[in-house]
């Protein structure tokens, strides 16, 4: 808003500013056309094919058919969708529970090592997702280091398994996406006015009370952003369920992958993709309503 006024005042002469506007539009055009042509067109294609059919040879056919949509109502699919939702939500909760102490320690007690510590979290995250998942599956394997350590201290016994269970899938998702939770939480904690914490202490709040009644409310926008950033990729993931879970642990991403690569039923795969998008859209809607409410409260 302010820039509009300022540059308007700085260039009262119409000529150059009009040619300038044209230059900016020309600069924007190729990228916009590219993104529209590829991205939007391809997403529209998925949405359309969801109403298509497969001919006897297995080739996809466009049409206006609701068979795929009714197929989705099959309990087999809703079970997988509900499981995916459950795993993704559990992943968010665990990420939140781990990320708060980590971000808190670094932001408020990191001192001059703050940036180095955050970089130490970010760097492995950029390493190949599959290699990290693979290493994680080795760590969690039945005779891997983690279970051996747990057995040694008596927490786990010989039959305890992590891989091939739902816990393994969630562990994979947490490991894969926890950085998305730590970064926004860290940013929120860094911005937070720490005198609030002191005030909480002065009012005889214990560490836990101060944390839940002062720190969490002050940083809930960072937490909400982190939840969205973890929830989105966790819902769509198919690597974790494949490497860490058994056949009865599949998520909606595995179903989509299967319909496109093994099942060769692209219309049904498209319908499943749209179902995933719908589930995520509802989640996003909840997030937006929450943040709007927060903003409205802040404005008051």
């Amino acid at each position, binding site marked *: 808003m302010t820039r509009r006024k300022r540059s308007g005042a700085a260039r009262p002469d119409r000529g150059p500013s009009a040619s300038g506007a044209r230059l900016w539009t020309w600069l*924007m055009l190729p990228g916009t056309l590219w993104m529209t042509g590829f991205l939007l067109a391809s997403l529209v294609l998925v949405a359309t094919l969801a109403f298509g059919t497969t001919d006897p040879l297995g080739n996809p056919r466009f049409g206006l058919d609701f068979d795929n949509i009714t197929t989705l109502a099959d309990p087999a699919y809703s079970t997988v969708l509900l499981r995916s939702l459950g795993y993704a939500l559990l992943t968010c909760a665990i990420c939140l529970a781990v990320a708060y102490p980590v971000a808190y320690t670094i932001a408020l007690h990191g001192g001059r090592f703050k940036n180095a510590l955050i970089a130490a979290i970010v760097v492995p995250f950029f390493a190949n997702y599959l290699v990290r998942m693979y290493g994680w599956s080795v760590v969690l394997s039945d005779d891997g280091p983690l279970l051996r350590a747990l057995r040694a201290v008596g927490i786990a016994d010989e039959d305890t398994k992590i891989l091939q269970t739902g816990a393994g899938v969630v562990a994979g998702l947490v490991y894969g996406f926890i950085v998305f939770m730590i970064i926004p939480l860290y940013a929120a904690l860094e911005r937070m006015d720490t005198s609030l914490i002191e005030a909480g202490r002065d009012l005889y709040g214990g*560490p836990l009370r101060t944390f839940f009644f002062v720190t969490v409310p002050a940083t809930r926008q960072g937490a909400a952003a982190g939840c969205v950033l973890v929830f989105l990729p966790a819902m769509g993931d198919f690597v974790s369920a494949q490497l860490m879970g058994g056949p009865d642990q599949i998520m909606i991403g595995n179903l989509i992958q299967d319909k496109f690569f093994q099942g060769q039923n692209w219309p049904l795969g498209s319908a499943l993709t749209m179902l995933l998008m719908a589930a995520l859209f509802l989640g996003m809607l909840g997030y937006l309503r929450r943040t709007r409410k927060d903003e409205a409260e802040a404005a008051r």
Partner: protein
Amino acid sequence: MTRRAERRPRFAIAVTVLFFALLYLPVGVVVLFSFNAQKSLTVFEGFSLRWYEAFFHDDVLLDSLGMSLQVSLVAMAGSLVLGVALALGLVRARSQLGSFAGLVMLVPLITPEIVTGVAAMLLFKGTGITLSTGTVMLAEITFSISYVTVILRSRIAALNPEVEEAAMDLGATRRQALRLVTLPALLPTILASAVLIFALVFDDFVLAYFTTGVDPQPLSVRIYSAIRFGVQPTINAVGTLMLLGSAALIVLALAIPRLFGRRGGLDLLSGK
């Protein structure tokens, strides 16, 4: 500014230490067992470079490595050209196209990769294009434009437009001002995002998986098919090399602003 007066939250510190241990344990396992003399993934039986040797004699993996490098370079160049221009336009233009473009470039960031992957695959197959190295490049460019634009947008918005206007008052055309004033000021950020895009595309799996043809396949797709069929010690060696490569690139991307005297660069750490 840590206030020493405040008690150290022992519980939070314990969680943090445990977190770092678990964060690096899988990476450490991959690196350690890449030097294992035997095939085992649980028992270390002596130091050996045989899995590295196996990798450098594996033509299929080497072809994949070459393809991944090619794809990353092309995607980096393509998305930089389109993304830098798009970001400049987005910040400076005040038009309907601008608000539309602003929305479109956000789509890949709020869509799970599996959806964009499926969509890109359907687009190629639907238009009769055979999946190949080229289709991976096209898909990766599309995805990377968003990153370039997001990174550069805030940097361009932080630039003082009056410097550009001063150049124009001194007789430069708008285009000259852009080329001689604005782009040099953005150079550190552009270089840092170039390195970042290269690393992201090289490591990308999901999009590459849906848009690649049969031969050659990107390295990450090869790794995926290898680890689905059980223990493959060569993958530890490839993985270690990839870890080293990505780590070096990310450290480089973070260090670029320092090399330029702290102007611009990546704002990874503030979480914005």
